[in-house]
């Protein structure tokens, strides 16, 4: 009797039990919507000003008020999961990210109907590609700014030792070993949870590997995966060129190790450019420079994006889409770049800001463009969110020497296949 009870029916019946009677908010006619709600991302104490500006400009242009709540990246993701699981129609618009998009294909409405293909042409194809549901090919979110990583290194220290930033894996070991000592480390990498999976993923592609094969079966445990994880582990455990705690580092520790001056090289996101240039958040202002991400057989790392999505249960979809379009428009992206060095997702805007930039910044932007041009992302198949929990543990186990890279990856591949099969990835 209960077979295939849809989530919606279940929640509706439960809502009635909880509240006593019908509690559905009265629907407001689409065209008349003058207020929408959005759940947006923030980062650090300054970012709220950006959304204030965007919402003001949007109100001026359309007359629609955006009531928004701001959360940092991690709480934002958990909150969106909660809202999605409860099938909430509270927010019409979400800030989201390629990294988590696979969890929300059911909660976000496809945007294809709202964007002409000519409108989409301007966006980086790699960004759009991984925001699509691979099962339906529908676009779940529209990219707002690109997330890709480059190398940040201490130019002053490198110059003293007449070193050039590492290009290959071998260089990285050599350079980092030269610089490690006396309480300082040549390199820092994160080693916990999602940041660890991100780092492994880059190395996997650089070693010539892929997450899944042509049948979408896990293939990250093949030779390139083992090579990647072995290299990753050796940086921490064998060459000891990273702080010993790296296994427990998230992004914040990864960044602050570099900005505090304890470490001379790291791979970080675009926002780091602004953070590292600000004396309030960085002890190394003026002492660092950037270089391309390292390479091995391939020169690949991730190219993902912060994006805007529409709640599939929103009753004000038209107004919501207006706001989504506004927040990814060229003006909004330019402002986002100028204030926070967040890299545009529109190629036209990217071209402009790159052309206008000078010196170090121009070089850095060129490196980012390069990363984006060759960038990739892990697959967004059903069940892959759970595969991530398996990978966190497998990678950390290897990095902390609890299991060999081969053993932990083989075990993880087996569990990953089960998880994806159960979630219907192969139906």
């Amino acid at each position, binding site marked *: 009797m209960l077979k295939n009870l849809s989530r919606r029916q279940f929640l509706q019946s439960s809502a009635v039990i909880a509240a006593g009677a019908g509690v559905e908010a009265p629907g407001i006619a689409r065209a008349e919507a003058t207020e929408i709600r959005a759940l947006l991302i923030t980062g650090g104490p300054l970012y709220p000003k950006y959304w204030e500006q965007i919402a003001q400009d949007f109100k001026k242009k359309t007359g629609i008020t955006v009531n928004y709540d701001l959360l940092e990246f991690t709480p934002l993701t958990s909150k969106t999961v909660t809202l999605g*699981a409860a099938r909430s129609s509270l927010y019409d618009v979400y800030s989201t990210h390629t990294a988590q998009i696979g969890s929300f294909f*059911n*909660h976000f409405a496809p945007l294809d109907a709202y964007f002409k293909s000519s409108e989409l042409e301007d966006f980086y194809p790699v960004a759009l590609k991984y925001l699509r549901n691979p099962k339906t090919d529908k676009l779940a979110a529209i990219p707002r700014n690109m997330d890709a990583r480059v190398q940040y290194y201490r130019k002053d220290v490198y110059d003293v030792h007449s070193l050039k930033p590492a290009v290959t894996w071998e260089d990285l070991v050599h350079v980092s070993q030269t610089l490690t000592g006396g309480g300082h480390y040549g390199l820092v990498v994160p*080693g916990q949870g999602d940041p660890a999976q991100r780092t492994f993923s880059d190395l996997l592609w650089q070693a010539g590997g892929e997450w899944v094969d042509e049948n979408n079966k896990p293939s990250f445990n093949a030779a390139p995966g083992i090579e990647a994880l072995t290299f990753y582990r050796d940086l921490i455990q064998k060459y000891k060129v990273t702080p010993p705690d790296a296994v427990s580092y998230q992004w914040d520790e990864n960044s602050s190790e570099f900005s505090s001056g304890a470490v001379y090289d790291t791979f970080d996101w675009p926002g780091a450019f602004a953070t590292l240039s600000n004396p309030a958040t960085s002890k190394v202002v003026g002492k660092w420079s950037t270089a391309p991400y390292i390479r091995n057989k391939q020169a690949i790392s991730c190219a993902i994006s912060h994006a805007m999505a529409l709640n599939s249960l929103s009753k004000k979809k038209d107004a919501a889409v207006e706001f989504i379009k506004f927040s990814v428009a060229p003006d909004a992206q330019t402002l986002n770049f100028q204030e926070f060095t967040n890299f545009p997702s529109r190629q036209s805007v990217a071209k402009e800001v790159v052309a206008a930039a000078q010196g170090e910044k121009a070089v850095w932007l060129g490196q980012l463009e390069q990363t984006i041009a060759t960038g990739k992302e892990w697959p967004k198949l*059903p069940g892959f969110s759970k595969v991530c929990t398996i990978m966190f543990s497998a990678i950390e186990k290897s990095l*902390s020497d609890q299991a060999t890279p081969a053993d932990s990856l083989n075990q993880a591949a087996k569990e990953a296949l089960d998880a994806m099969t159960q*979630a*219907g990835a192969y139906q």
Partner: protein
Amino acid sequence: MADAAVALNQPGRRRPRGPLTSAWTGYALAGPALLVMVAIFLYPLGYSFVMSFFRWDLSAPSAPFIGLNNYKETLTSPLFQQSLRNQLIFTAATITIEVTAGMGVAVLINGKMRGLRAARTLLLIPPMIAPAVVGLNFRWLFNSQYGFIDALLTDLHLPAIPWLSDPNWALASIIIADVWQNTPLMVLLFLAGLQSLPQEPLEAAAVDGASPWQIFWYITLPLMRAVIVIALMLRIIDTFRTFDVVWLMTQGGPGGASSLVTVYAYLLAFQGVDFGHAAAVSYIALAISLVLLGVLYGLPWLRER
């Protein structure tokens, strides 16, 4: 199972008698509180129990009924087995240390001492501090570069310890944080217990020439049974609910080495977006802690009379 644990909570319950026993009046009085609990907490409890029999996966298009599959998958998952093993170690270690140290300190400081009132006040602080503060503060204390503890060890010419990055030390670290937070509570519980003991048997034994150790072992400890049982129960229940401190310190890492069942459930729900599975994990944890309470109740020494 539940009954055993519940019965434990009702030692020597006085059955209500007398004129004030009308069930209707009783329910009218108890009703509002029961209603609030049922509406707000019991309903979600049932809801999540139902969820545990569905493939309630946010990334899947539908939520089919799958019977006991979530429970089967949980029990066979290596990460769950590891979390459960950690959980049992965590529970056993924290309780042993907290109860033993708590009893030891309580016995030693029981009696007339200067500054005992101030000391009690200070001892009440850790158990009353937000777990969020404790977790973040200990993550910082255990930092191998900027943290106090390794700095102190280095100053004392001792080797620094990789607290949060070594699998064994990571589990030890969360145990230490828990012991820090909860031992003072045990001290206060036992101190209050000791001070309410009848004095005659203790004095009689002292007159008979029993050694302090004999008095403690044969008289004080048996008299303290009730308090010890309660302390054990409280700690078993709470260790199976511990989440904030561990999540903020290690997120269960590295590689699940400090993962507890709640941490595993949280990861499954909020990263793995499989809420049915996460609910199953929680109910298995609940069942295990109920079994432990049942076992505790069954231990002959702890049974009264």
